[in-house]
């Protein structure tokens, strides 16, 4: 029998706009939280939380927002990347026109291995930017461990070795890459701190798996020891640390297989100031499903954190569709959901 329920416009994980009834959205939210619960072995969202999400997603409004007084602060990547003007002009656009609480200077070749080669230019740009900005200016790049492997780097390529079954060689290559990456990240942090940066951001930590995450943790530890006052932000690449090596540990904890709460505990132990969990989006599921799943997986992380948690809410993570042009209706719903339900410290 055709439903009499009104169909509500709602996004899917690939950014496309569909139409679902309120009942269908409720079912998506329930399915999403159960999927997250089963995957990460955490508790599903409560009935109250699901009903609140239903209020958000069953609204046809273009934009959704938190209540007055519940606003959070925002940290960014890419706000100083020479998109519109110079990098410093871009930082000022974010500060003055977008109301950014903090901004991030970065290079378009957004990896620590790459920026090490132009470090003096980055430091000069940071110093100059600090003279004209009011908000905190972080410096950001990616650990990007893969760049240390052949043909881009000096170590053997573990992605090539693994399919050949040369596991021990692959592990050795990753261990070698970790040492090189830590050196570079600490070296860059030293220079940017000297130039006046408010902090440093390790974006997409764990992108190349457990070796990538280990390099980040060790770098954070060293930077914290060298610069006790420096802000250090770690944002993850994905919801789950892939075991490309499989046996790497930090403080006795095996890194492969870690979910956001465990990731946060190690990042905090290393000395970071802010942690950003990332939960991947499934492009063939609804936005409601994806947000419910993301909140379920991230909830224990936020609840048990001893440092601020800034949920990664962007292209393909945190319930935001995987699309270069992110629809405001989708972004605002995902953002509001993170604030209302998770009580995040920022986004």
């Amino acid at each position: 029998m055709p439903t009499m329920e009104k169909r509500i416009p709602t996004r899917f994980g690939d950014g496309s706009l569909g139409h679902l009834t309120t009942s269908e959205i409720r079912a998506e939210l329930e399915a999403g939280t159960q999927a997250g619960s089963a995957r990460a072995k955490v508790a599903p969202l409560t009935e109250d939380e699901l009903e609140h999400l239903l209020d958000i997603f069953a609204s046809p409004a273009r934009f959704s927002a938190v209540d007055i007084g519940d606003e959070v602060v925002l940290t960014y990547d890419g706000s100083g990347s020479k998109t519109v003007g110079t990098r410093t002009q871009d930082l000022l656009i974010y500060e003055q026109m977008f109301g950014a609480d903090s901004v991030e200077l970065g290079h378009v070749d957004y990896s620590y291995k790459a920026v090490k080669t132009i470090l003096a230019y980055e430091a000069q740009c940071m110093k100059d930017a600090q003279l004209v900005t009011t908000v905190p200016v972080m410096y950001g790049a990616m650990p990007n461990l893969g760049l240390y492997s052949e043909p881009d780097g000096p170590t053997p390529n573990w992605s090539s070795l693994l399919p050949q079954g040369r596991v021990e060689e692959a592990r050795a290559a990753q261990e070698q890459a970790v040492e090189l990456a830590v050196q570079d990240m600490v070296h860059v942090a030293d220079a940017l701190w000297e130039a006046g940066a408010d902090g440093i951001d390790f974006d997409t930590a764990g992108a190349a798996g457990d070796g990538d995450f280990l390099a980040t943790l060790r770098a954070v530890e060293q930077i914290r020891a060298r610069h006790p006052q420096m802000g250090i932000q770690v944002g993850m690449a994905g919801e789950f640390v892939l075991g490309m090596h499989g046996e790497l540990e930090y403080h006795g904890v095996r890194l492969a297989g870690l979910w956001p709460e465990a990731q946060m505990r190690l990042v905090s132990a290393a000395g970071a100031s802010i942690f950003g969990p990332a939960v991947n989006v499934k492009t063939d599921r609804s936005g409601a499903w994806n947000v419910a799943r993301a909140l379920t997986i991230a909830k224990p992380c936020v609840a048990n954190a001893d440092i601020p948690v800034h949920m990664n809410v962007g292209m393909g993570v945190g319930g935001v569709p995987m699309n270069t042009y992110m629809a405001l209706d989708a972004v605002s719903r995902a953002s509001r959901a993170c604030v209302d339900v998770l009580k995040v410290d920022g986004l």
Partner: protein
Amino acid sequence: MQISRKMRLPDAKAYVAERLGVSAGELSDPLVMEEVRGSHGLGRVTTFETLYPTESSATEAKFSISRVLDLPINCVERFRERTGLG
């Protein structure tokens, strides 16, 4: 406060509100904060209709922010060192 002291949001809001003499809720009220930023020299959002050439901005504002919040700011400390302001 989050970047420098790892404060979680409610604590950070409470701290800043107390230092500025406002409520935590007023921190996100643009009309209240316009006055507060002006009176404390914390820097403003400028447009062609609202210009403050005689008020603190950028590095000047960060000196004020550091003082008002009792918060060491890296670039402010570097500025002091390199200009001999002490």
